[in-house]
């Protein structure tokens, strides 16, 4: 693990990604303590106060401190995106591995169905699911997980099929190893790396999707300081205070960039044999 971290730090993408991730983690863990102000405290004299010593990132339409809201809002964005990705990855990995393992007609049927489900644009599927489950952060998370699962199933299956065709797996089969040994000891460690990389990159999509759902009024609900919601609320005050739009926008982008970079860094770091 420490070895992986060291190798990750050696790639520029990995290093920047890790640093950004550390900042985000700090915001998630210690956001309320780091925040210079109470994120809910309204100050009608300080409405639309520009960036300055009093409010570093300015104040919003109620005079609430934007930086404090961002720091606290990290908690309602990042953990949700991570949970959604994790859930979708696990579900997808199980289906994908099963499909690759079963092979034949089952594989064909499962994959064609997954292709069909993927014909529904991701945001549309999430939209439909949330409207069924009801608005809210938890339901948005579940919807994103469901949306991700087919794609992850496809990735996992492709990797699993490649690994299954390798001679070391054949060698285990010929030896008469049990199915569970072959899957968990021979195949899984080799399937893991590409799936982890793919999932990392997908966290950035989850962050964006979650923020989008909140922006559309289907995800996190006011008065939460979820970043997508903050952008949605700020749109009416473009003329008075552009910073209340720009700050959460950049927070979303920074998070997405962090996971994109981290994924690319992992791709290099997890492949010790590739010396190009």
């Amino acid at each position, binding site marked *: 693990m420490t070895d992986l971290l060291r190798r990750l730090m050696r790639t520029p993408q990995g290093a920047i990604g890790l640093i950004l991730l550390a900042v985000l983690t700090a915001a998630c863990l210690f956001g309320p303590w780091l925040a210079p102000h109470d994120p809910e405290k309204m100050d009608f004299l300080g409405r639309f106060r520009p960036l300055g010593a009093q409010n570093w990132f300015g104040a919003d339409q109620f005079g609430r401190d934007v930086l404090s809201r961002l720091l606290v809002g990290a908690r309602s964005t990042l953990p949700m995106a991570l949970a959604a990705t994790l859930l979708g990855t696990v579900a997808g990995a199980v289906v994908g591995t099963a499909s690759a393992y079963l092979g034949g007609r089952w594989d064909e049927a499962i994959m064609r169905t997954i292709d069909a489900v993927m014909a529904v644009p991701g945001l549309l599927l999430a939209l439909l699911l949330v409207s069924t489950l009801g608005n809210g952060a938890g339901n948005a998370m579940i919807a994103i997980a469901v949306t991700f699962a087919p794609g992850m199933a496809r990735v996992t299956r492709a990797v699993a099929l490649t690994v299954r065709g390798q001679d070391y797996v054949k060698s*285990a089969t010929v030896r008469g190893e049990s199915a569970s040994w072959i899957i968990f000891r021979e195949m899984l460690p080799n399937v893991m790396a590409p799936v982890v990389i793919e999932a990392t990159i997908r966290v950035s999509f989850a962050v964006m999707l979650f923020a989008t759902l909140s922006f559309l009024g289907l995800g996190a609900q006011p008065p939460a300081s979820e970043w997508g919601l903050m952008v949605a609320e700020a749109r009416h005050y473009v003329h008075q205070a552009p910073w209340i739009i720009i700050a959460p926008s950049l927070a979303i982008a920074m998070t997405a960039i962090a996971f994109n970079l981290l994924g690319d860094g992992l791709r290099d770091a997890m492949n010790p044999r590739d010396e190009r």
Partner: protein
Amino acid sequence: MTAVLSLRDYTLDYLTGSRPLRVLQDISLDIAPGEVLGLVGESGSGKSTLAWAIMRHLPKNARELSGSIRLGDTDLRGLSPRALTRIRGRRIGMVFQDPSTALNPTLTIGRQVTETLVNNRGLTRRAAWDLALELLGHVELRDPEALMRRYPHEISGGEKQRILIATAFGCRPELIVFDEPTTALDVITGARILDLFARLRAETGVAALYISHDLALVSRVADRVAVMKKGRLVEEAPAASIFARPAHEETRKLVAAVPRPEHRLVHDRPGDRVLLAAEAVSVRYARRRLFRPPPPPATHAVGFDIRAGEILGIVGESGSGKSSIARALTGLADFSGGIRFDGRPIGSVRDMDGAYRRAVQIVFQHPDGSLNPRQTVGEILSRPLKLFGTGPADLPAGNLAAEIGRLLEQVRLPAAYATRWPHQLSGGEKQRVAIARAFAAKPSLVICDEITAPLDVSVQASIIELLLSLRAETGAAYLFITHDINLIRQIAHRIAVMRRGELVDLLPIDAVDADHVHPYTRDLMAASPTPVG
């Protein structure tokens, strides 16, 4: 008479990570007009880099430190990219190792041949097309007219190589560089390409640099042979004498490693007890699919037997079904027909119990793929020991480690390798670990599926030596699948010849040259070049 190609004290480094890596050191050589110089060396000897240096197509991290490369009167090193374009194809041609990747997959053959002729001979499209037809006809391709309208994927590898050779000769260069032009082809196809090369060369009198890892082959096609080792030219000698009087140690090593059918390595005779008998084994891949015709079987009713301690060779071209036999015998492919092992009938994969799986082991072709990259050598070797209970009776960690060490030493590897990861080993070392894994099960039959094909000749020779000594120690029988006829004639007791999924011959080793063999067997034997002298 001035040389066509002349290198003087040419030295080249590759810049890698920490410090430069010397790839070519003080290379000096000449090729006279009409002469064929063979260049031999193992992988990593620098022979390919030399070819790229002559073609002026070096990777970005290459640094030429000194020396000159002259083509006739032209100093190639001093040429601008634009001037080089006028040299390539027109004055130096090149024929590549793998014809299937040397042609653009999305353009027709005709277009690719004519564009070269238009560019290099200054012909009109019409004239180039006519010349292309003539050239293709001249290299014994049937129906050139139709061939010109096809795409590369629609024709065979041998046809592609003929087309590439025809194009290279058709541009009338002074020199043609051949980079292992038969390595990617089947034995018989390769032999015909060599015949073609000899004929065209006699007709045109072109000079050539012929690069190969195969000393026996080079000694047949070249006038002179140059041997490379670690970036140095260690010996240059007339082809006729290099086998008889190798001067340098590296050459002697290469000569010794060349398999010679008349030089048998196995002198004993196997017992009479039949260990395994295959009865009408057919393998069929790929299930039926909607809207598609069923695929033909990979092997069709193949029957043979292997006696205890015997070495049975299976030879045939790629796609002949020889690997499918290995897959059927190890339960990797479903088969119809039956197998008898030690008298016990095995009708399907389900009948292969622990005892059978222990007794029948397989070593795969590619050492890179056959070891799990996320397990250490020790973990890899401990599995069969635990699974088959062939390890020490009590299995505390210490005894297991000792047994793994013993296995490693048995395959001539240091016991300390147990803690290494596969990617830290060389190809030959990986193959040794795979062999150790097979012998950990104390097998009575080991199937070797092209296990020496990806290895250098000297490594190949040491692997064969290892297998033979393991056989002497354990009495295991081998089913040795290969396309290397000369190699198998050195070690097998009997040879099975396969073609298009069928067994066409099953002969004792001393009968392969007899008159009554199948015509295909005769072609196959004739196509394997044996060293001259």
